[in-house]
């Protein structure tokens, strides 16, 4: 697992270091709702909840959502 953590951090840092900064006037397309992660919060919540209750485990999206008796 430690190797995966190092690889993930290396990819993230390398990606951030090499991109050309996007100017404020270039962010029109990034403004679109479809470009936001989890733009529909309720949809994201129930989808994560369904997968959490039907598969072995969940994680990656956030913290602090609380548990349930479904798994």
């Amino acid at each position, binding site marked *: *697992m430690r190797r*995966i*953590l190092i690889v*993930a*951090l290396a*990819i*993230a840092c390398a*990606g*951030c270091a090499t*991109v*050309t*900064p*996007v*100017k*404020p*006037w*270039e*962010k*029109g*397309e*990034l*403004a*679109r709702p*479809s*470009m*936001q*992660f989890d733009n*529909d*919060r*309720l*949809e994201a*919540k*129930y989808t994560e909840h*369904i*997968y959490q209750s*039907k*598969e*072995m*485990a*969940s*994680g*990656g*999206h*956030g*913290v*602090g*959502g*609380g*548990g*349930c*008796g479904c*798994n």
Partner: protein
Amino acid sequence: MAATEAKSAAINPLLAAALALPGILPAAALAQSMPDQGIFSVNYLDYRDWQPGADRMSVKSPSFYVLAPFADKWTFEGSVVYDAMSGASPLYFNTLSGASGTGITEYRTAGDAKVTRYFDRYSIGVGGAYSHERDYISRAGSLDVRWWTADHNTTFAFGFAGNADYIHPADRELDNGRRHTLDFLAGVTQNLSPVDIVQSNITYSTGHGYYSDPYKLLDTRPDERRIWAWLTRYNHRFVQPDATLQLGYRYLNDSFGGDSHAFDVAWVQSLPGNVTLTPSFRYYTQGAADFFFGPPFPQGFQFGQSFTADTRLSAFGAMTAGIKVAKVFADGWGINLSFDFYRQRSGWRAFGAGSDGIEAFSARWINAGVSKAF
């Protein structure tokens, strides 16, 4: 791709001129800081699942969500959900609970709330969550800190949460039905170009306490659990044909055993009349927990060791196909309707063999929602 980017670049001078006017800076320019708009939404979810020859659970679930900026530098975010569940769940492998397999009726009420204070270059959020069932109570508290670069192109996120769960089955008293969990998150969101954005999160969860399922026969699980998850998501905007490609991959490592991989793809296509159509697909695969032994009788099981016949902890693959249609009106109202179909099969497992003797499992869910931006 090159043509798309060229068109995007050609549009930029016009956008630059427009954005130079005060008051019309789009939300994206502020995407890494405080939202400038509130929203509330109401959803109704209808869920049903089944296995060959038998219906299992059915859930009707209304929910409410609000995000509201206030006092210039603050936001409040909260949601409430009510689940009405009925049907039967497996008691032992695919054998359903209850003599007739008709099962039970259960209700769950859950809510969460979060207050965030925004500063020039960072934000601090404090939240709480509560979930109540007749036999299960969960409480959680969380803290998250976000820090973004001066150009708002990179945001780092750090989160911490503590969960306390209390399990008290209706038909018996457990010696210690408590579970405590700590969750940690570190993530980065990066604008890669005017049409590309990526997010990568790593979460770690460590917990101890009661992890067994009191309603499954012979279920005895370890009393400690650690989960690593690495989630990476990437969105690409196609200016023509006015669409967005959304990709996601999650790797998860669970101390119960059995790594899992999840791949997501969605295509958000804009149509005339402020309508979007979003087909989506997900593939998921997991290995079995170390203490899952195959049916009919748990082969290899020894008394005193952990054991589960819970098929959710078996080795399988799963696919989800979905379609969503949404429309936004000029006054800020929006409506959406989605349908998803999900199926698990042991034969669909990747990176190894699936568990033998497990029935296929299917589910479908339909969601209808109304929202209003303000």
